[in-house]
Every structure is written in structure tokens, then in C-alpha cells.
């Protein structure tokens, strides 16, 4: 703010000066010698440091050309290495943050002073309030003293002017006259401006008309790129930090004495992630504290060899903020010749190293052909500064070469020469893996968005210069839309300028918007007016958005009609996607642009005053999860299919729809869970059929350990997973409906086989498999072998067969009995008349009949125990009994509960 204000004041004043000069240019010419002297004398102080260093750039500040030229003639040629510049000026340019001395505010009238605060007591002053509300105080001198001053400077142009044009001095006129003059002056300015505008528009129009033919025009981006440091729009703090760093090279590059300055606070700020300090005072204090700490913790500014501690500056930030421009301008500002290397160059390691050697590691200077010269053709020697643009895209070995160069000690001779010139790296993303080693060695500067006001002003200037009718609001809108991306702003502006008068209707594409999915979704569900950015965002995350919308819309739809409309749109979107991306029609891809509109159309049905609580679809409901589940079940079906015998192979749909559900029922005949030799002939036949069927279709039971440690038999392949449906637990708001539905679903369904029966079947299966394998082996050995083995039936182990082979088989089968506990439960349930229906935890479900049956059997439970009794009894009772002998068909001895009681008593007695 300080600078701006300063600039404004200066500008007004200089304009005045220029007009005066126009008025009496002859007189000025006559006394040019003295004028030169004056300007040369004041030169170092008055002029901004930039202008003094950078004479070639056309100064945009408002010194009149005549003065400028006089100066440049007078000023010694700039050669930073030779100590040509006066010391004063150099230190001045080294400290750009230092404002010029206040006293030179009115260079033509040194008698004038102004103060920021009330001047010292005793002096007269008058206060002036600026248009911005700032207040300055002008001290008043008495007339006699002023006359003296005027006389003393009689030979100066202003004095001359005063003498020739009688009463030109400000104080020499009356207030009314002054006002009239000011009004006239204003009018004149306005006229001039209008005339200028008219010609500008005319030329622009002419340009436009001719442009279409052949003349290629310069891109506005380069046309209006900042020419000097003061033109930079980027964040001031960052600019200064970079400049400061560049200046710290002065000692080693130009051999100037080292400056012991405070590290600007800006550096600390810029290094930090965010430059947004809150408004609260406490926060600010806190911030200052942190800043101080940061300053303490900062590494020393210089290393041993006099070079800055950080050899490399890493300038990063989003695109279009002016990083490259800043790097170039700042380097030029500090007297370097910029050598750039960007992504369009060859960036192999060799090239990289060569360039590094040529520019940054050499102690010499780069020949600056004609640019720095004064037009006399002699090239000047200027040290180089390497700007590595877009380094985040450089190959990692190239960056590593740079890092190696950074780490090289200055003393060491040989291959690894140290870096002698500043290197500025520019990138969008400093966190790419390639830059990992570079980051700790570099001064990291993040370039934040340029301040909005400055951006808008600049854009307005451009509009004016190009003759575009741009009002502040529109330009501000443009700036917001592009989110601080200066480059795209300018490009959009140029596009609109070229498109002609109907540019207001033209659509300028946006680059990737950083909006999150949820926020877009929220906007689709709210009544807030939409802008075109939502459309862009919609088309960006099209599929995901459709999925989210699909997940959420029933919550927001007020009635079924709206829901149906939304569903229809989503359906349309799906078809559009399918048509576009299936590749069936080649030109169908053109339709893809309509897809986001289908999503936006849903908004008419959904948008409400209050957005519902939106959520992303849970992972189990996403398309991908569904596919996974589907393919998992398809895998089961495939497994069953491959195990089918060749003659009964069927397609998947038939398997899933017809065979599998019925097969699961067929595999559950009502079998008693008793030893097979107690079976009737019919039951045996049933069992045999079952086993035969399971072998034929490649099914078997495997033992699985449940999480609670119990063993369970499961069908393999798991047909039940393929066939059985679970009631969705999430979607069951009213408990009543759910329970009725589950009961009705499972009404016709018999409970699955009990564990005991499964075990029995599993055992039979194993036996039958062995038997078949035996038979097959026998058949292979000799046709004379008895073929009756395979026809003996499934209940063979129960039959007494005398051959030793048979007995061995029976033994094997017995050995296969899986677990004692399961056997015990089998025996236990054998005593019950009906198969005990168990729930999930293995507890028997007490139907009335079962309860009646259980009552007499209750005593027995103590003995047969662990498997059937709950875990509670296991914990409470200190003693329990269980069979350990395993299962045997041969030996069965009835044991009474009473004997167990007796045993228990005896144990307790002995224990006590």
C-alpha cells in the first residue's frame, strides 16, 4: 500500500511536470546543462532502483522521455562486475524493499515536505486527506523563506518556468483560479483520453479486420508480460524473497561486500505452506512469534565460501501464476543473463550437465549479444543465471546430477565443480519423486495466487489498451473464473477480443476444476443457481458422479414421480455411456458430450431448499463390488460346471436358475443321524443315492473351523452361497415386515442338514470314493477281480465283509472320523428321536416336540456334554466328562448318568 500510494503521488506530480515542460521546452533546452546536472545529482536517489539497473526496458513509470534520455546519456554504462555504479545506488538496488527517502517526494520543489505523522510541535502544518482516506501533513514555510529558496534555485528549470510564465507557481494563484484550472485540466485530459480510445478502437478494429487475412498477431500473454520487476503481479512477499536470495549471490558473483541484513520476513512466510494469517490480533502475535522462531531456526544465510546457503531456489505453484516470468525478471533485475532450460529442450543427463557446466559452474560470464549493449554493437559480459523450467518433468538422473553438483565442495578440484551461479528451478509440483533429493537443498518458494485487485487492474489495462469494452465487474468475473491463473485470463481475454462483439456469448473452456465430488453432488441437490463450471465438473467425473447420484437420489426425491424421472435420466445416461464407449459405432463418441446434461437434468427433480444428507455409495454397493460379488459367485458356478460329468454339462444360467436350487434340496434328504448300520434298507438306499449323486456332481463336505473354534461341515464347492439369498440387513427399517418376509421366505425351506448328518455323509463319501478307486485299480489289474466291490452300495462299512482288504478299508474309514466332539454330538443326538435343529451358535432350537423329547434326555446331557451344552456350563462346572475314545461302530456300552454322579462324588471326596 505504501508503494502504491507513493506511486500515485509521484505520477500525478510528474504529469504536472511534463506539462510544464511541454509548455516551455525551449527554455528547458536553453538551460539543459544545469538540468542534466540536477538530474544526475538526484538520479541515484529519486529514480526507482529498477530503472537505474535496467535501462533497456521501456520504463512504464511516468518520467518523460526527454528526461529519461538525458539521464541515460549521462549515466555510466551498467556493468555490475566492474564497480561502475556508485555505491549508494547499488545498495539501493540491493534493497528493493527499502522505500526511497521521503524528502525527494517533490523533486522540483525541495522545500516541500510531508509527514506521515503530526510534525514536531512549533511548526505550522496543514493536513491533507487523500482519496483513500490516508492523511498526510504538509509543513508550511513562511513566504520569505520560500522566496529565498526560489531564488537560490533560479537557474533550475522550475525556477526558470516561474520566471517566464509569471505566477505559475501553485501558491501564486488564487483558489478559484486554481479550481478553474483544475477543471479545465480535467476536461482536457478526458478529451485526450477519449481521442486516444477512439483511435485505439479504430486500430484494433482495423487489426481485427486485417488479422483474418494473414498477419499473425502476438499472443497477448507475451505482449503484456511484465517487462520489469515493478510490473510483476505476483505476490510481493515471494518476489522479494527471491530477489533477496539472488542478491545474496552478489558477494560471490560480483565480488561486492557481503551485506549483513535481516532476512526479510517474507522469506519465512513464503517458505511456509500458507501465507494466510488470520485477522485476529492474537493470531497475528502468534504468527510473529513463529516468524521469529523461524528466523532463529533458519540456516545461516551464507556458507563458508561466501555463497548463499541455498544454492538453488525452487519456485513452485499452480500454472499461470507467473513463476517463469518472476524468475526471468528477478534474475535480469539483479544483473544476470538468463539461460533457460525447459521441457521442450533436450533434457538428457549429458545435456543437463553440459548446460550446468556452461552456465552455472563457470566463474566466467556469458556473452550477452547486443541485448545489454547500448546499441554500439559491443557485446557486454554478464554472468549467467540458469532457470530450469518445469523441472518436475525432468528425468530423475538429470535432477540427481544437479543435486550432486550442489553437494560438491568448492575447494575440490576435478570433475565435480561447485555451483558458482544461481540456479532457479521452476515447477508446478515440488513433491514429485524426482525432486525428492533436491527439495531439502533448495530455497523453496511457493507462489500463491496474485492479489485479485492487482489482477483485475492489469486486465482492465489490457482491455483498455486493446480497445475492449471491459467493465470492472466482468473482468473480475473472468479473474474469479480462472482462479488467479493469469495466463488463462489473458488468453480468454484475447479470445474474446478476437471473437468480436458477440464474445459475451462465447464459451471459454475451463481447465480442470479442482472441485470435489461431494461438492458437485451437493450443488446438484441444492437450489443454488448453477454456473457452467458445474457442467465442466460433471463431465470430468462423469461415471463416479452418476453412481453417487444414483445412490443418493431416493433420499432427495419427494415422491415416486420425481424418483422415476431421475431414474429415467440415469438410465438414459447409462445408455449414452454404453453407446459411446462400446465402440460399436465409430461416430458415437460425439454423443459423449451430452452425458453430463443427463446428470444436470436430474437436478430439476431433486433440488430442494435443503440438501439431504448425501453420502458416497458404500463400497459394497458400488458397481465394482457388485461385479466382484457376481464374478465370485460365477466362479462357484464355474467350479460346479467343470466338475460335472461330460454328459450332463449345462450352461451357467441353467445351472444357477434350475439345477443349483433343486440340487441343494435334493442333497438334503431326511436322514437320521444315527450309525448307518441302524438304517433301514430304504434309508440305506437314500444314503447311497445321495452319496452317488454327490460324487457324480463333484460335491463333497469339507471341515471348516468357525471363528469360535467349532468345526463345521461345509459343502464344497459352496453351492449354498450361490443359491441362498440373505435378507439385506441394511434395508430393513420396520422390523415387523422383515421378520414376516424372512419367515415366509424360509417357510417352504427345510433346515439344512445337521452337523451330525453332514459328518456321516462326509464319511460315507470318503468311503465310497476309496471303494471306487479300489474298484478301478482292480479293474485295471485284472478283469478277473471281483467287480462287485463298486456295486456293494454305500452302506458297505456296516456290512460284515470278511476279506482283509475290506477290514483295512473300514479301519481307514474309521480313522477318517474327524473329531471326537462331533462324534459325541452325533451319539447324543442319536438318542433323540428327531434330528436336533440347531441355531447359529450350535444351541438346540426348542420346538415343543423337541422340548418334550429333551426333558427326559436332560439328565443325559451332563454326560454327553461339551458339544451340545453351551459354553456357559463349560465355564461354571469344574468337572465334565467326554468321550475320548473316538467313534466306533463295534463297541457300544450303555452308561448311566448315575455312575457319572458317583464318580463325581468320589472325586470331590478325594479332592477335599
Amino acid at each position, binding site marked *: 500500500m505504501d508503494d502504491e500510494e507513493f506511486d500515485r503521488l509521484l505520477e500525478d506530480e510528474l504529469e504536472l511536470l511534463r506539462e510544464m515542460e511541454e509548455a516551455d521546452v525551449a527554455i528547458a533546452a536553453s538551460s539543459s546543462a544545469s538540468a542534466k546536472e540536477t538530474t544526475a545529482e538526484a538520479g541515484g536517489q529519486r529514480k526507482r532502483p529498477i530503472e537505474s539497473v535496467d535501462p533497456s526496458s521501456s520504463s512504464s513509470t511516468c518520467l518523460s522521455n526527454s528526461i529519461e534520455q538525458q539521464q541515460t546519456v549521462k549515466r555510466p554504462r551498467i556493468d555490475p562486475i566492474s564497480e561502475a555504479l556508485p555505491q549508494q545506488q547499488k545498495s539501493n538496488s540491493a534493497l528493493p524493499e527499502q522505500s526511497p527517502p521521503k524528502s525527494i517526494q517533490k523533486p522540483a520543489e525541495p522545500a516541500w515536505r510531508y509527514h506521515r505523522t503530526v510534525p514536531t510541535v512549533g511548526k505550522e502544518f496543514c493536513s491533507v486527506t487523500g482519496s483513500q482516506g490516508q492523511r498526510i501533513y504538509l509543513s508550511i514555510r513562511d513566504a520569505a523563506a520560500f522566496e529565498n529558496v526560489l531564488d537560490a534555485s533560479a537557474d533550475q528549470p522550475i525556477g526558470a518556468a516561474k520566471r517566464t510564465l509569471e505566477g505559475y507557481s501553485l501558491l501564486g494563484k488564487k483558489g478559484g483560479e486554481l479550481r478553474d484550472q483544475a477543471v479545465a485540466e480535467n476536461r482536457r485530459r478526458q478529451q485526450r483520453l477519449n481521442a486516444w480510445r477512439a483511435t485505439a478502437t479504430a486500430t484494433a478494429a482495423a487489426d481485427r479486420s486485417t488479422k483474418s487475412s494473414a498477419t499473425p498477431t502476438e499472443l497477448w500473454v507475451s505482449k503484456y508480460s511484465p517487462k520489469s520487476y515493478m510490473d510483476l503481479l505476483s505476490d510481493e512477499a515471494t518476489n522479494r524473497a527471491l530477489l533477496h536470495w539472488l542478491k545474496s549471490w552478489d558477494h560471490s558473483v560480483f565480488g561486492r561486500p557481503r551485506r549483513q541484513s535481516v532476512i526479510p520476513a517474507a522469506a519465512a512466510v513464503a517458505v511456509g505452506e500458507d501465507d494466510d494469517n488470520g485477522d485476529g490480533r492474537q493470531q497475528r502475535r502468534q504468527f510473529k512469534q513463529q516468524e521469529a522462531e523461524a528466523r532463529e531456526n533458519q540456516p545461516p544465510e551464507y556458507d563458508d565460501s561466501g555463497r548463499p546457503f541455498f544454492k538453488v531456489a525452487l519456485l513452485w505453484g499452480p500454472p499461470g501464476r507467473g513463476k517463469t516470468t518472476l524468475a526471468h525478471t528477478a534474475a535480469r533485475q539483479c544483473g544476470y543473463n538468463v539461460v533457460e532450460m525447459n521441457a521442450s529442450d533436450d533434457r538428457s543427463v549429458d545435456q543437463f550437465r553440459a548446460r550446468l557446466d556452461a552456465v552455472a559452474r563457470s566463474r566466467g560470464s556469458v556473452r550477452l549479444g547486443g541485448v545489454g549493449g547500448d546499441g554500439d554493437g559491443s557485446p557486454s559480459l554478464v554472468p549467467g543465471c540458469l532457470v530450469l523450467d518445469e523441472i518436475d518433468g525432468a528425468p530423475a538422473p538429470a535432477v540427481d546430477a544437479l543435486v550432486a553438483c550442489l553437494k560438491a565442495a568448492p575447494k575440490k578440484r576435478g570433475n565435480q565443480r561447485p555451483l558458482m551461479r544461481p540456479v532457479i528451478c521452476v515447477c508446478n509440483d515440488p513433491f514429485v519423486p524426482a525432486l525428492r533429493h533436491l527439495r531439502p537443498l533448495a530455497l523453496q518458494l511457493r507462489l500463491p495466487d496474485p492479489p485479485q485487485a492487482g489482477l483485475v487492474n492489469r486486465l482492465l489495462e489490457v482491455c483498455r489498451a486493446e480497445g475492449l469494452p471491459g467493465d470492472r465487474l466482468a473482468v473480475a468475473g473472468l479473474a474469479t473464473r480462472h482462479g488467479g491463473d493469469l495466463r488463462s485470463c489473458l488468453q480468454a481475454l484475447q479470445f474474446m477480443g478476437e471473437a468480436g462483439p458477440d464474445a459475451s456469448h462465447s464459451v471459454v473452456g475451463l481447465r480442470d476444476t479442482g472441485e470435489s465430488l461431494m461438492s458437485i453432488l451437493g450443488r446438484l441437490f441444492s437450489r443454488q443457481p448453477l454456473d457452467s463450471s458445474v457442467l465442466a465438473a460433471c463431465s470430468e467425473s462423469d461415471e463416479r458422479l452418476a453412481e453417487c447420484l444414483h445412490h443418493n437420489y*431416493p433420499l432427495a426425491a419427494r415422491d415416486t*414421480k420425481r424418483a422415476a424421472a431421475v431414474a429415467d435420466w440415469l438410465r438414459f445416461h447409462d445408455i449414452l*455411456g454404453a453407446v459411446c464407449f462400446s465402440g460399436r459405432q465409430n461416430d458415437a463418441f460425439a454423443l459423449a458430450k451430452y452425458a453430463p446434461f443427463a446428470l444436470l437434468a436430474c437436478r430439476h427433480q431433486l433440488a430442494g431448499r435443503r440438501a439431504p444428507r448425501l453420502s458416497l455409495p458404500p463400497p459394497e454397493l458400488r458397481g465394482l463390488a457388485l461385479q466382484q460379488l457376481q464374478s465370485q459367485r460365477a466362479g462357484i*458356478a464355474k467350479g460346479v460346471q467343470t466338475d460335472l460329468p461330460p*454328459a450332463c454339462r449345462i450352461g451357467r444360467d441353467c445351472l444357477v436358475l434350475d439345477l443349483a436350487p433343486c440340487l441343494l434340496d435334493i442333497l438334503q434328504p431326511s436322514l437320521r443321524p444315527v450309525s448307518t448300520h441302524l438304517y433301514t434298507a430304504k434309508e440305506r438306499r437314500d444314503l447311497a443315492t445321495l452319496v452317488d449323486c454327490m460324487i457324480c456332481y463333484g460335491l463333497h463336505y469339507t471341515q471348516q473351523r468357525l471363528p469360535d473354534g467349532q468345526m463345521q461341515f461345509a459343502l464344497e464347492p459352496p453351492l449354498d452361497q450361490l443359491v441362498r439369498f440373505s435378507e439385506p440387513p441394511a434395508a430393513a427399517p420396520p422390523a415387523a415386515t422383515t421378520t414376516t418376509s424372512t419367515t415366509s421366505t424360509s417357510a417352504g425351506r427345510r433346515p439344512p442338514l445337521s452337523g451330525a448328518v453332514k459328518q456321516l455323509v462326509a464319511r460315507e463319501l470318503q468311503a465310497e470314493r476309496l471303494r471306487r478307486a479300489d474298484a478301478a485299480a482292480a479293474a485295471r489289474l485284472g478283469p478277473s477281480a471281483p467287480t462287485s466291490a463298486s456295486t456293494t452300495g454305500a452302506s458297505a462299512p456296516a456290512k460284515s465283509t470278511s476279506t482283509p482288504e475290506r477290514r483295512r478299508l473300514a479301519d481307514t474309514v474309521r480313522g477318517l472320523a474327524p473329531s471326537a466332539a462331533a462324534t459325541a454330538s452325533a451319539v447324543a443326538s442319536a438318542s433323540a428321536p428327531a434330528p436336533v435343529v440347531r441355531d447359529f451358535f450350535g444351541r438346540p432350537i426348542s420346538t415343543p416336540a423337541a422340548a418334550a423329547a429333551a426333558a427326559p434326555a436332560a439328565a443325559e446331557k451332563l454326560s454327553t456334554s461339551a458339544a451340545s451344552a453351551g459354553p456357559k456350563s463349560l465355564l461354571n462346572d469344574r468337572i465334565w466328562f467326554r468321550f475320548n475314545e473316538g467313534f466306533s461302530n463295534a463297541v457300544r456300552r450303555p452308561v448311566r448318568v448315575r455312575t457319572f454322579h458317583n464318580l463325581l462324588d468320589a472325586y470331590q471326596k478325594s479332592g477335599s
Partner: protein
Amino acid sequence: MSLWVDKYRPKRLDKLDYHTDQADRLRALVESGDFPHLLVYGPPGAGKKTRIHALLRELYGAGVERLRLEQQSFTAPSKRKVEIETVSSNFHLEVSPGDAGIYDRVVVMELIKQVASVNQLDASQQREFKVVVLNEVDRLTKDAQHALRRTMEKYMATCRLILCANSTSKVIQAIRSRCLAVRVSAPTEDEIVQVLQGTCRKEGLSLPDSLARRIAQASERNLRRALLMAEACRAQQQPFDPDQSVCLGDWQLYLKETAKKVLEEQSPARLLIVRTRLYELLSHCVPPDLIMRCLVTELISSCDGTLKAEVLTLGAEYEHRMRLGQKAIFHLEAFVARFMAVYKKFMDEVIMADW
């Protein structure tokens, strides 16, 4: 071979239980010595495969029943390996090229080329052509079908194709015109009852007539399903009880339940519930068009007469769109939502009229 479906499958053309006229004609075709490519089509469970196998047996004798399973692998142009299982005898080869997904074109071309390029060794004793049975031709991609078209003509001398499909609507015209179409319609309920009775008699069981009829009705004229249901009934209860319940497939019950939920209440909240059920169905590999069809049937059966036509039209439209699209759930749900809207409007009008 222990399920009734497979155990009592007729092996010869003259043992077939129904469509005997057609069987006679097929036999006449075989006896004439040569026959064109066949396209056998009809609804599932009508007996297409049974007829094809009987025909093959008629052609080559009992040798075709000695089947072996082979894994064949092909390399697609994109260097991707495609594996597919084939069932073959010395005289024929049976394959479901639809299993190869989008690579079915490679399978069709390579496999048929491979079979057809080898002549029968002993042509004097046997037929001079082999037979390739392609199952589920309607699942083939358009590419594969076009590839098939050329192959069919090229290898006509050594190879006959028997295509098996549920419907000809997805078989391209070019193939249809190259084949003799044999339609195997679904058996009538009476025929199913007969088959069931006969099967039970062979098993030594007596099936009550009423139960047989109920099974036939529940099977929707799908003989395979009917036989499996009958066997499930037997597993459930022995001997048969005339009043015994017939188990439908789980997915059928679940679908019925879903339709009931749609009719119970029409609201966006209910739509959410229905959606999870649809997801469940889809994840159980139930084909979406079947879901749509069953839903429409269920809904129509409980709709007022004036609504039936509209719902049917809706169903047809949404099913068609579903085939065009990718995500079945969007279309199924859209149908449910639309039905809810229509049904609710109708019910509201009825209530208003009553007032």
C-alpha cells in the same frame, strides 16, 4: 448319473417322449445320409440338447457317448490366452464359445478350422463329416457370428454345425439362412406330467397326479426344472404326499417377495429397499432380463386390468433399453420407480373416485 434329469434322459430319437413327429423327421434326415447345418432353438428345458445327442447317436452309433473333456487354449490376436473346455467324442465336438467372452471369435474360427481340416480316417465306415455342436449361440458376439458365417461355407465338406440357441432373435440373419432351423417348443403341462409319472414309475415310486400337475405348473413348462423339482420333493418327503409343497428356487421366491414389496408401498424409501434386493439378485448371477420379466409378470398379476397393458409396455421398453445399456441396476430400478409412479397415481385416482 444319478439325478433323474440325467439318468432318464432319452438316448435315442425313438425314445423321445414328446414331439415324436419331429423326431421322425430328424431320423429321416439322418437316414438320407447327409444333412445341412442345424439351428436348434427353443426355450430352456425343452429338450434341445437331448434331441441333438439323440441325433448324434443316430448318426454315429453308441460311439458318441464316449465323451472326453478337453481343455483347449487359443491365442487371441492381442496375444492373450483364451482357454475353453470342450466335450468331444471321436465323431463330434461340443463347445460353448460364449464362455470365452469377447474372444469368442477366435475360439469359433480356430476350433472349427481345427476340426474341419482333418478328415475322418475311415470314411467308408463312418460319415465323411464331423459334427461341431455350438451351445448358446445367442450369446455369441456379432464378430464371432460373422466369422462363423464364412467358416460354415468353407468347411461344409468335412464339417457340419449344430447350433443350439434359446432364441433366434440374436442370431444374425446370415447364419439363420444357412441353417435348417429346428424349433423345439416347450413341452405342454400334460406332457410334463406324463414324463414325471413315467420317471417315478421307473424309480419305483408313485407320484400323485395332483402333485405332478402342480410341479408341472410351477416349472413353467421347463422339463428340466420339473424333474429336478420332483426329485427335490422326493428328497423332502417319502412317499409323496399329494398336498406336499413344491419348492421353488430361492431366486424365484426372492423375486416374488420383491414384487410384493413394490406393491405394498410406493415411496422413494421403499425404492431403496427394492434396490438392495435387486443388487442381491444380480449378484447371484440371475440374468437381468429374467429379473425384469419375472418382475413384470408378478406385478401384472396383482395389477388392475386397466393398468396391465401399460405395465407391459413399460416392461418391454425398459427391457429393451437395458439391453442397450451397461448397468442393469439403473434400468431395473428405473422400471420399478416408473411402475411405482404409475401405480401410485392409479391408486390415488381410485381413492379419489371412491370419495
